[in-house]
């Protein structure tokens, strides 16, 4: 089993949740989202993000608007829709349950060893 592959799978799984969480407080443009995700090492290559954003937008969880930029091409600012907010709430609940479960399991395993 390829460890890099597994790691990538794990990251990709929670990527959606993280993007929605980032947009909870303020609207961001693509590069901002990329930078934040890269800072916390959740993203290795940028490629993954584009299809994901498009899908979230197509699923009406996100909306966007164009804004002019002084230093480059116009920027796409993403915003969480109402539907996105409720989706995020549910995801957050699930995440809490999951992280608790993972914590319990892994800690138990560690204690046993």
């Amino acid at each position, binding site marked *: 089993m390829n460890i890099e592959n597994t790691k990538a*799978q794990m990251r*990709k*799984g929670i990527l959606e949740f993280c993007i929605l969480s980032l947009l909870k407080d303020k609207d961001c443009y*693509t*590069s901002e989202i*990329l930078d934040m995700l890269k800072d916390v090492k959740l993203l*290795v*290559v*940028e*490629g*993954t993000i*584009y*299809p*994901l*954003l*498009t*899908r979230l937008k*197509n*699923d009406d969880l996100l909306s966007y608007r164009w804004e002019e930029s002084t*230093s*480059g*091409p*116009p920027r*796409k600012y993403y915003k969480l829709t109402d539907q996105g907010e409720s989706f995020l709430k549910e995801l957050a609940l699930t995440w809490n349950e999951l992280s608790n479960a993972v914590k319990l399991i892994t800690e138990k395993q560690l204690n046993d060893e």
Partner: protein
Amino acid sequence: MNKTVTINIAGLFFHIDEDAYVKLSDYLDAIKNSLNTEGKEEIISDIESRIAEIFSEKIDPKTGVISMIDVENIIQIMGQPEDYRLDDENESQGESNQYKKEDNYTQRQRKLFRDPEKRVLGGVLSGLANYFGIDVVWIRVLFILLIFVYGSSIIIYPILWIIIPKAKTVADILEMKGEPVNISNIEKQVRENIDQLGNNIKNIDTNKIKAVGVTAGEVIKKIIGITCMFFGILGMIGSFIMLFVLNGFTNANFNNFPLHEIVNIGYPVWYGIAAIFTSGFIPFLIIFLVGLKCLYKNIKYVGLISILLGFIWAIAIIFFTVIMIEIESKNDLIRKYIDDTTKVTVVKKSLDHVANDTLNIDFIRDPRFYGINDSLSNDKIFIEKDEVEIEIKSTTNTNAYFEIITEASYSKSSSIEINNNYGKTSFTETPTMLEYYSKINNNNIEFANAILTEKNNMDKYDNSVKIILYLPYNKIIRINSDNQRYFEYQHQINSGLHYYKLIDDKLECTNCN
């Protein structure tokens, strides 16, 4: 030195080195190929605007040109084409259901597509080969063989071409090959595609290659090409078979075939064989080359080679013609010599003494054939060499008579020998012939049923005997044709002992069934 092109990404202008441009354009194509989702265009434009953003940040203000290194950095940041695929697509719920369904039920089951990668015409046969999982060569062989079964493949092929869809997307190609549509396979396929495109990219826009279908002209050209190659190969194989057959015949004495005559006039026999082979082989080789040219445009000098081959062909033909003319004039000479030396004798024998009786004609073996007490010996002095011809004619005389016409002549081979060794004038010997045996005993007539020749002279002479029997109308004769070997009749004679009557120049049997 490097050529620079100007590109427009997300509305911004950049100068970019040509090689870097090619790389970038390849990369974007590869991403396009790996994406399978809706909103593909939107994703690409997002990616392009991100690339523009990075370029405008990192561009070297001195030169203002984007280099290969910049493009490589971009790819480093953005990731490989497979990174763009959301591999949880199959598991995800909701809107992407459509894809889920499609992907699930086609997995591992081969689908029939035309294979554009390995196509000769429409890719039908390579598609079938993929579907059945066997090498395409066998399918092609089968289809060529099917041409001979009432030309069925000529009808089947276009129908299959119309009804089988072409494999267009990466997913199609994987389904066609029966590989599951998953990320690693798509990645593999996309790499292969990039390699393939990379070869063509220098001159032609990659998108154009995909867009251009097979035009009618191309198809006709290919059909002509395949046909030409097929018949060319067939002809060339045939020529080689002929070469071996002729070689085998070199030693055989073939009267109607000019090979040994070539030797007779003093040329080595392979002159003739080479000339015949060349004049047969070259046209097929040219047909084959033309076919090859129709199929593969990059083959050069076909015209030039064909002209050269044509010259060689013409030389072979001229050479062969000259040989044949020499043979003919030599043959004329020999024929004339044979005619000049032939000794003709006509012996007429009257049958007046059997005026009112029935004539009994018997064909027997020449009594000289068996010497005394040597009927069991194989060492005979004589052989029965040639046939005797008999003709029955009507006469207004009241009585019957017959003529024996004998012609003693040299055989062709001995004439050639005489001409080559002695010269006509110095050779005074004339052809000889044993006397033809016939016996009249009252109304019984015996004829020898073959021309007897001394064994020693067997090849030297070419003798002939013709008997003409003149009969008055309504004269009845009895012919015993039990021993008729080597005997040639002009009239229809039944085997056995029968009575015949001459009516209206036709010999009619009076007691046959």
